[in-house]
């Protein structure tokens, strides 16, 4: 029987300085904090990071960026992270912004073996000023090349040893897309079940896309409820 379960250290062994790393999550839900912390401890640097946002100050992806490990960040929004905005304004990190759904589609295209997408989003704005344009049936379209990464870090709710993944609620977000779009896909999971115990109708990411499964030892406090977002 195939068993892709490994330790965090084993899973991250082949992540190298200068790699491009995609990281799932939208806010706390779906962010693989354990894998990010593993990368922080490993000391990898010069990274290009791709994530919807950079988490909030002092959390998750922001910790990697604050520690100076990232050369570049590709994301959609940094509204909840003044630290990274400050670093961007001081040119301590290069930041590339995309409309959220276009970022998602670029990643989906990368995962699907396509070269890019065509879109009219932002055609009248400064966001697309320097981008390649083509005419499609008389309409101006922006060419958005596909995005792939060396490594994807994924957080899932449950997995089986083959790497079939099930996400939970709003923790799904970018995870299933990124799980298709990297050369090495590492999924941390809250629980592992026996092969055959996941209902095939409910598998979100088929195991073929996943290289390593890391079963989390505990759900640490960073995965918990953020008081400042509660009533």
């Amino acid at each position, binding site marked *: 029987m195939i068993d892709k379960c490994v330790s965090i250290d084993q899973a991250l062994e082949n992540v190298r300085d200068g790699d491009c790393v995609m990281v799932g999550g939208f806010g*706390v839900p779906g962010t693989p904090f354990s894998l990010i912390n593993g990368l922080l401890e490993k000391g990898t640097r010069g990274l290009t990071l791709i994530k919807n946002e950079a988490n909030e100050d002092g959390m998750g992806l922001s910790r990697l960026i604050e520690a100076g490990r990232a050369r570049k960040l590709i994301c959609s929004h*940094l509204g909840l992270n003044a630290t990274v905005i400050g670093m961007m304004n001081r040119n301590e990190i290069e930041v590339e912004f995309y409309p959220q*759904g276009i970022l998602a589609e670029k990643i989906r295209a990368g995962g699907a073996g396509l070269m890019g997408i065509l879109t009219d989003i*932002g055609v009248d704005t400064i966001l697309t000023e320097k981008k390649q344009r083509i005419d499609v049936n008389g309409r101006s379209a922006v060419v958005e090349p596909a995005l792939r990464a060396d490594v994807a870090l994924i957080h899932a*709710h449950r997995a089986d040893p083959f790497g079939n993944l099930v996400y939970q*609620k709003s923790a799904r977000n970018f995870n299933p897309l990124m799980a298709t779009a990297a050369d090495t896909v590492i999924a941390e999971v809250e629980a592992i079940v026996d092969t055959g115990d996941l209902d095939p109708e409910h598998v979100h990411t088929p195991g073929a896309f996943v290289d390593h499964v890391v079963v989390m030892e505990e759900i640490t406090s960073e995965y918990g409820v*953020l008081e400042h*977002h509660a009533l």
Partner: protein
Amino acid sequence: MWWSWKRSRPNTGYWNITPYKEKIAQRAAEEIAAGQVINLGIGIPTLIPKYLTSEKPVFIHSENGILGMGPRTQPGKEDRNLIDAGGNYVSLVKGASFFDSTLSFALVRGGRLDLAFLGTLEVSETGDLANWIIPGKFSPGIGGGMELAQKSRRLVVTSTHTDRKGRPKIRRKCTLPLTAKGCVDTIITELAVIDVTPEGLVLREIAEGTALNEVIQKTDAPLIIPRREVPRF
């Protein structure tokens, strides 16, 4: 079965919201029709749900992959895996669904979002919207705003009539970089409800206790004033 909010007295304690924002949100809620799929941007739009009545069931979309979002979760009941696009813990209504980020924006770009409410920095008389960047001062990224502005079937801007320095936000032309061109259908402020039409900006309603002159004075773009008496809200 749709879930809907009951009309209740605005609770201004949580967010320290000034009354005019409540007034804008209350008026904005009247633009929603029963059964619509809607998206609420940050700021004033997040106040709209409490002004929806049980006769007006709606499905609220959240960019992070939810359709059928309910009100914010009561203290102690938060689910760590269930937030809205602004990070707040939310509940679900019956019939809700989860999906990934591509499907979330397929719903928006594909024309299945009936109505979006967004705040703004500036709006032009032709419905151009500028709400995402002040070069050199404010550039947190566009998030989902550009797609919502450009592709929702109807876009209502909810905003104060003037900025913090008292300058008109409704202008002949936007001075800030655009979010999208010609995307705004209606503007709701504490002073007026204004429709963007091919002829120009039409004053549809005026706030109770507001003089017509004040609206004209605080609007940089020309307003088309109907000959009949303008209804109050």
